[in-house]
C-alpha cells in the first residue's frame, strides 16, 4: 500500500479519543434539549449565536473535498483552480440576495425546512414536492460523497486490505455520526462543528506552514512549473477560462441553496449573528481554499513524478507522507491534519444527514402522510428516518465501492448543482418580487430540471446543437436555468394578476 500513511497505536488512540468526544458532545446536546419538537431537534430551539454559527457554517461548507479534492484538482490544472477561491466567495455573495428576508420570514413563521418557505410563498403542493425532491436528491448524493470520503480517508490511513479498511471506515464513522446526532440533533451537529471547525482551521494553518517548510519559496515553485508544466502556471484560456466563469455562476448560486445552509440561516439566533457570521465567511475562501490550492500546485511543481496520473487525489498524501517521514513532530502534524480531514468530512456529512431527515420528516411525512402527528411523534419519526438513511446509504457506499462499473442513477444524481440551481428563481427572485406566481415558477423549475438532466444522455461528440452546448464549458444546469427564468419570470409577468388569498 504505497498510498497509506501508517500510524502507530498512539495515533489511532488520539483519533479514537477525538471521535468519542463527539459522542460526548452529542450527549450534552441531548441534555440541553428543551422539548421534543422538530424545532428543537432540527434547529436547536431558539438558535445559535455568532461564533457557533460561523464555525458551523465553515465546517459544514468546507468538506474533505476542499482538502483532498481541491489539492488534487490544483495539482492537475495548476493555478487555474484559483477559480475555487472565487466561487466560494460567490456563494457568500449570493446570500445577500435572499438571506436577510428569509431569516426575517423564518423567525416570524417558524420555518424549519427550506420547503416551509416555498409553501409560505407559493402555496402550491406540487411546488413543495418538486422542491423537496430536488433537495433530497442533491443532498443524498452529497451525503453519499461524504461517506465515500470517510472510507477513503481510513483506507489511506491504514495498511489493511483496501476494501476492508474502506468498509470499516465508513461503518465506524457513520455509526459515530448517527449516535451523536440521534442524541443531540442540531445542537450536537453545531457544537461538534465548533470543535471540528477549529481543528479544520488549525489544519489549514499547519498546511500553509508546511508548504513553505517543505518546498521553499513560491518563486521556486513557479519557476519549476514554468519549466516542466507551463500550462499549470500560465493564464487559463479557451475551455479552461469558460469553465472558470461556469463555476463562478453554477457554484455561486447553487452552493448557496444547499438545504443545510438555508437551515443555518433559520438557525441564527438573531439577524446580528447572521450578518456577522456571513461577513466572517467572506474571508474563509482565502484562508482555507487558497491554502489547499497552493498545496496542490507545490506538489505538482516539486514532486510531479510521485503523482499518480489516474488519481491525483493523492497529491496531498504525497506531501503528508514526506512530512511524516522526516520526524516525529512531522508525524504529529500529519496526524492533526488527518484529524482535520476526518472532522471536515464528518461535519459536512452530519449536517447533510440532519437536513435530509428534516425534509423527509416534515415535508413528506407530516406534509403528505400524517399531518396531525404530534411534535413528539414527529421527532421520533425523524430519528427513525436518520437511522434508515445511515444504514441504507452506508450499505450503498460500500456496495458502490466494490462495484466494477458505475450506476447510472448515481451518476445522474452527481448533477446535484445542476438540480439545485433550478431553485434559484423561487428563492432569490420570489422572495422579493410579489408578482412571481406559483404555476410558472413550478413549470420553470420542472422544465429547467428535466432539460439539465437530459444532457446526461447527449453524446459529446455529436454534431447537434445540444452536443455543442454540452462541450461548451458551461454546465447543463446553467442552460436549464435560462429556460427556467424565461418560463418562471416571463410566465409570471404575462399571467393576469391573481388575488392573494390569506
Amino acid at each position, binding site marked *: 500500500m504505497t498510498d497509506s500513511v501508517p500510524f502507530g497505536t498512539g495515533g489511532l488512540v488520539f483519533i479514537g479519543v477525538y471521535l468519542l468526544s463527539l459522542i460526548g458532545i452529542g450527549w450534552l446536546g441531548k441534555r440541553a434539549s428543551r422539548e421534543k419538537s422538530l424545532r428543537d431537534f432540527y434547529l436547536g430551539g431558539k438558535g445559535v449565536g455568532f461564533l457557533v454559527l460561523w464555525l458551523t457554517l465553515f465546517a459544514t461548507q468546507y468538506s474533505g473535498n476542499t482538502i483532498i479534492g481541491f489539492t488534487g484538482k490544483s495539482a492537475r490544472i495548476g*493555478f487555474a483552480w*484559483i477559480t475555487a*477561491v*472565487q466561487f466560494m*466567495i460567490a456563494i*457568500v*455573495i449570493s446570500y*445577500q*440576495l435572499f438571506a*436577510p*428576508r428569509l431569516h*426575517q*420570514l423564518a423567525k*416570524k*413563521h417558524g420555518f424549519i425546512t427550506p420547503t416551509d418557505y416555498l409553501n*409560505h410563498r407559493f402555496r402550491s403542493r406540487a411546488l413543495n414536492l418538486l422542491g423537496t425532491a430536488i433537495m433530497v436528491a442533491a443532498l443524498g448524493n452529497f451525503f453519499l460523497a461524504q461517506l465515500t470520503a470517510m472510507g477513503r480517508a481510513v483506507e489511506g490511513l491504514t495498511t489493511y486490505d483496501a476494501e476492508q479498511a474502506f468498509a470499516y471506515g465508513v461503518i465506524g464513522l457513520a455509526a459515530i455520526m448517527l449516535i451523536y446526532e440521534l442524541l443531540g440533533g442540531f445542537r450536537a451537529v453545531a457544537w461538534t462543528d465548533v470543535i471540528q471547525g477549529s481543528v479544520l482551521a488549525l489544519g489549514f494553518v499547519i498546511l500553509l506552514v508546511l508548504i513553505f517548510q517543505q518546498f521553499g*519559496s*513560491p*518563486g*521556486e*515553485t*513557479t519557476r519549476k512549473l*514554468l519549466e516542466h508544466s507551463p500550462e499549470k*502556471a*500560465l*493564464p*487559463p*484560456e479557451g475551455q479552461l*477560462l469558460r469553465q*472558470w*466563469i461556469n463555476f*463562478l455562476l453554477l457554484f455561486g448560486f447553487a452552493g448557496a441553496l444547499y438545504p443545510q445552509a438555508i437551515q443555518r440561516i433559520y438557525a441564527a439566533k438573531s*439577524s446580528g449573528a447572521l*450578518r*456577522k457570521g*456571513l*461577513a*466572517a465567511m*467572506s*474571508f474563509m*475562501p*482565502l484562508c482555507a481554499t*487558497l491554502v489547499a490550492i497552493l498545496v496542490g500546485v507545490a506538489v505538482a511543481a516539486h514532486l510531479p513524478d510521485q503523482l499518480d496520473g489516474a488519481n491525483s487525489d493523492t497529491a496531498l498524501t504525497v506531501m503528508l507522507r514526506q512530512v511524516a517521514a522526516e520526524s516525529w513532530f512531522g508525524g504529529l502534524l500529519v496526524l492533526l491534519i488527518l484529524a482535520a480531514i476526518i472532522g471536515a468530512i464528518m461535519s459536512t456529512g452530519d449536517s447533510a444527514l440532519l437536513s435530509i431527515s428534516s425534509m423527509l420528516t416534515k415535508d413528506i411525512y407530516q406534509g403528505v402522510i400524517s399531518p396531525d402527528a404530534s411534535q413528539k411523534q414527529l421527532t421520533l419519526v425523524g430519528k427513525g428516518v436518520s437511522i434508515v438513511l445511515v444504514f441504507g446509504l452506508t450499505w450503498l457506499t460500500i456496495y458502490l465501492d466494490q462495484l466494477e462499473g458505475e450506476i447510472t442513477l448515481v451518476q445522474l444524481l452527481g448533477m446535484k448543482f445542476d438540480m439545485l440551481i433550478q431553485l434559484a428563481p423561487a428563492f432569490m427572485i420570489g422572495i*422579493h418580487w410579489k408578482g412571481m406566481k406559483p404555476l410558472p415558477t413550478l413549470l420553470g423549475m420542472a422544465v429547467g430540471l428535466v432539460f439539465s438532466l437530459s444532457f446526461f444522455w447527449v453524446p459529446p461528440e455529436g454534431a447537434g446543437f445540444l452536443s455543442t452546448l454540452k462541450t461548451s464549458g458551461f454546465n447543463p444546469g446553467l442552460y436549464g436555468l435560462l429556460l427556467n427564468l424565461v418560463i418562471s419570470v416571463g410566465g409570471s409577468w404575462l399571467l393576469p394578476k391573481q388575488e392573494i388569498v390569506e
Partner: protein
Amino acid sequence: MQSTSGYHSRWIWVVYLCLFVIAVPWYWPADSRQILFGFPLWVVVSIATSFVISCYTAWLFLTRWPEDSEEEGE
C-alpha cells in the same frame, strides 16, 4: 424597500461586476510569464482582487443588512 439598506441597489452589483471582471484572468496574454512575490502576476492580481471582493462583501453584510421591518402584512 429601504433605499439606504438592503442589497437592491444596482450600484452594489455594478461594483461586483467590475471587481469580477478584473479578478477573472480573461485579459492576460496566453504566454504571460511575469512574476510578482514569486507567483505569476496574473495569479497575484486575481487573488488580490478576490481579497477586495471579500472585504467589500463583509462590509456590505455589516453595514447594509436591512433592518427588520413590518413592510409586508404577511
